[in-house]
């Protein structure tokens, strides 16, 4: 059938038409071979724009369509739908990206370039063939990685709809960072009080399979059909036998810094991180256990009445099959040690925000007393904002929670030590959320000193009697325009939220990418912040970027909804643009077979030719690039089409 091509050039308001002479491009297109009609319109993606294409397909008998507009990553699905609705196979479309790759990025030469891109698209679209999208069943199980508030929320949303969730957490208990926090801004709810009911719901939910002290080993497959290997690290405690009585932890003679208490208290070598842990089954920390280090002790084993201790336990790898994956791997707290001028690690009474949370917490190392390392109650506290955030040397981004938790700290100090002087050293107060500004106002009325300026240094070098024995915070008060030295007993650093240390490794395991700040990259920053470029893999919470608890919960529920909508459909369309081998041309050289990263090509001994398994092929086209006989067609990107496109861009 002779190609009958329609070319549609979008103005995109002034986005394209502002710099590209769309009229000239239309006339140019009109003169190209096989082009039956070329039109331009204000907004091609609008209903009237779409109707324009549909009418032409019907009236002029078009069998190929070129849309010159934005990136195909933006509106290709829209225009494919238009073709489909007009009764044309959706693969008979080609887009020319004259917005992101042209009108938005060049100061001159845009019209010429648009012509070249349209020319290339017209030349290529002639080679497009109708393809049938394939549907495969969607596995209704979901994997959720990370058991903080994001993972917990998403798990409960999905499990409540009676679909299986595998929740994987690498720590001995779920709870994440939120369970470490004392109060939550701006409402001052107790963090543990609002989280523990959800944790226990996860622990007992019939549709949640919980893997704690476990990590993801390997992910393979594709949307609807992922295979995941989960490594259950040896706990050395039999989960079925353990009653959670805690005698082992009492009797264990070895003490280790507690990660849960941010190093301010100690735990045992066999431990549950905190009393409300889910599951309430301890683990043995092999690195610090006397038995593993020296071959003697086994005190826990002797005292365990349930006989749950098992030193012979080994790691176990479990394989599960899931349709969707939600990553909720959270964040790490910025280590302020490199900012030496703030003296963290040098001066005992300089604390990080997380350490201070634990100090305030009634279940924390001091029973909720805010006290210095020597046991005194501080009479003055300085809180330094933006430590590691909004700083080109560390993280350029704003961590979005520090202003508010710093205000909360002021309130907690005021509550516990009413006479204390409190100083907030801030760059800008960012109180943007619901109830945030009101909370700021309330704190201003509680007698907190706000000093606008980035702190230059925290030192113990006194220059006056008043400063003796104190930590002196040196800063410029940029509102008054003078330098200040404020002697205090305690300094709290409002440390940034940063990507997990192993974020790159995790991104690779799941074939997703990171944005420049190191957090996981979302599919679209505004319209698809919970999806990734890999179909079927979603992200929620701080692994996507710093955010507070309400935003995390909202995103987690959204990610869960996305998974659920796929589950409820029960099937998923997968790429039809796979590779196909022409038996007549294949010489049987087998060059393609080892090149395929998915093992989709095999050799048929009878015919002496290679053959592609379309269910495994993902359409990368690497085989087509290597075939010496030109026998492999990467559909939608066939060699002839691309060669024509090359000629096209070089007009």
């Amino acid at each position, binding site marked *: 059938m002779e190609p009958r091509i329609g070319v549609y050039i979008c103005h995109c308001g002034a986005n394209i038409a502002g710099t590209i002479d769309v009229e000239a491009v239309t006339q140019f297109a009109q003169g190209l071979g096989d082009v039956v009609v070329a039109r331009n319109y204000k907004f091609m993606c609008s209903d009237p724009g779409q109707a324009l294409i549909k009418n032409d397909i019907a009236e002029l008998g078009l069998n190929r369509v070129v849309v010159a507009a934005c*990136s*195909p*990553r*933006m509106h290709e699905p829209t225009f494919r739908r238009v073709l489909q609705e007009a009764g044309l196979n959706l693969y008979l479309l080609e887009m020319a*990206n004259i*917005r*992101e*790759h*042209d009108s*938005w*990025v*060049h*100061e*001159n*030469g*845009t019209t*010429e*370039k648009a012509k*070249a*891109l349209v020319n*290339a698209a017209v030349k290529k679209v002639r080679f497009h063939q109708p393809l049938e999208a394939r549907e495969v069943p969607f596995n209704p199980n979901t994997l959720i990685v990370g058991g903080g508030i994001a993972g917990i929320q998403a798990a409960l949303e999905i499990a409540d709809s009676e679909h299986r969730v595998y929740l994987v957490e690498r720590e001995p208990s779920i709870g994440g960072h939120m369970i470490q926090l004392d109060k939550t801004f701006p409402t001052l709810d107790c963090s543990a009080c609002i989280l523990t009911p959800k944790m226990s719901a996860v622990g007992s939910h019939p549709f949640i399979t919980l893997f704690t002290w476990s990590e993801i080993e390997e992910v393979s497959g594709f949307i609807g059909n992922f295979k995941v290997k989960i490594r259950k690290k040896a706990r050395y405690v039999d989960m079925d036998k353990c009653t959670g009585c805690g005698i082992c932890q009492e009797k264990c003679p070895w003490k280790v810094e507690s990660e849960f208490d941010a190093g301010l208290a100690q735990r045992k070598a066999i431990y549950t991180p905190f009393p409300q842990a889910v599951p309430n089954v301890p683990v043995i920390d092999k690195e610090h256990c006397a038995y593993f280090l020296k071959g003697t002790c086994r005190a826990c084993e002797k005292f365990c009445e349930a006989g749950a201790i098992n030193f012979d336990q080994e790691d176990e790898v479990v394989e599960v099959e899931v349709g969707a994956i939600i990553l909720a791997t959270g964040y790490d707290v910025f280590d302020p040690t490199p900012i030496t001028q703030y003296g963290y690690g040098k001066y005992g009474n300089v604390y990080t925000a997380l350490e201070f949370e634990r100090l305030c917490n009634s279940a924390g190392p001091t029973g909720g007393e805010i006290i210095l390392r020597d046991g005194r109650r501080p009479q003055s506290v300085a809180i330094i904002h933006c430590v590691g955030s909004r700083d080109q040397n560390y993280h350029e981004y704003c961590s979005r929670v520090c202003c508010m938790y710093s205000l909360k700290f002021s309130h907690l100090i005021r509550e516990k030590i009413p006479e204390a002087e409190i100083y907030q050293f801030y760059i800008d107060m960012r109180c943007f959320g619901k109830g945030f500004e009101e909370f700021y106002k309330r704190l201003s009325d509680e007698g907190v000193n706000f000093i606008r300026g980035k702190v230059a240094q925290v030192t113990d070098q006194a220059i006056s009697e008043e400063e003796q024995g104190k930590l002196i915070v040196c800063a410029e008060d940029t509102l008054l325009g003078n330098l200040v030295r404020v002697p205090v007993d305690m300094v709290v650093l409002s440390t940034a939220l940063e990507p997990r240390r192993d974020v790159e490794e995790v*991104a*690779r395991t799941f*074939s997703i*990418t*990171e*944005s*420049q700040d190191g957090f996981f*990259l979302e599919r679209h920053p505004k319209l698809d912040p919970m999806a990734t*470029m*890999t179909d079927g893999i979603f992200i929620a919470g701080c692994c996507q970027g710093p955010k507070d608890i309400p935003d995390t919960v909202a995103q987690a529920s959204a990610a869960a909804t996305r998974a659920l909508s796929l589950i409820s459909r029960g099937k998923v369309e997968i790429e039809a*643009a796979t590779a196909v081998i022409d038996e007549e041309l294949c010489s049987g050289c087998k060059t393609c077979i080892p*090149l395929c*990263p*998915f093992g989709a090509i095999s050799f048929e001994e009878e015919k002496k030719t290679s053959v592609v398994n379309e269910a495994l092929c*993902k*359409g*990368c*086209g*690497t085989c*087509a*690039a*290597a075939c010496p006989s030109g026998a492999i067609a*990467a559909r939608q*990107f066939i*060699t002839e089409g*691309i*060669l024509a*496109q*090359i*000629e096209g*861009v*070089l007009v």
Partner: protein
Amino acid sequence: MNFEPKIVGFLCNWCSYAGADLAGTSRLKYPPNVRVIRVMCSGRVDPLFVLKAFASGADGVLICGCHPGDCHYLEGNYKALRRVTLLREMLKQLGVEEERLRLDWVSASEGDRFAHIVKEMTEKIKELGPLSIRT
């Protein structure tokens, strides 16, 4: 007259094409000399495409893929790297300067990097002048 080189860019769909899109969304400015052809993977770039581009009047060819280890198809970018290494040797024998074929890595979040690469390459090829293949 000023020489305006023509550069054909082969960009992988998942990282580099998205990176170039981001340059657009961020309204970064770079020279219009590059004309982009989208491929699913840098591993799809048949050496033939590069030769065809030079033969059809391109003064430079730019291939961009995901950073090593980040390939959406696991290792297509490594295959592109191997092919380009061999191809450069061949192009040298044809009298095509090495700098006319550039392979680089641009992730979906590196719009500025893409703009920078295009700027740099355009300047380089302006220095080299139009391609003339030794006959």
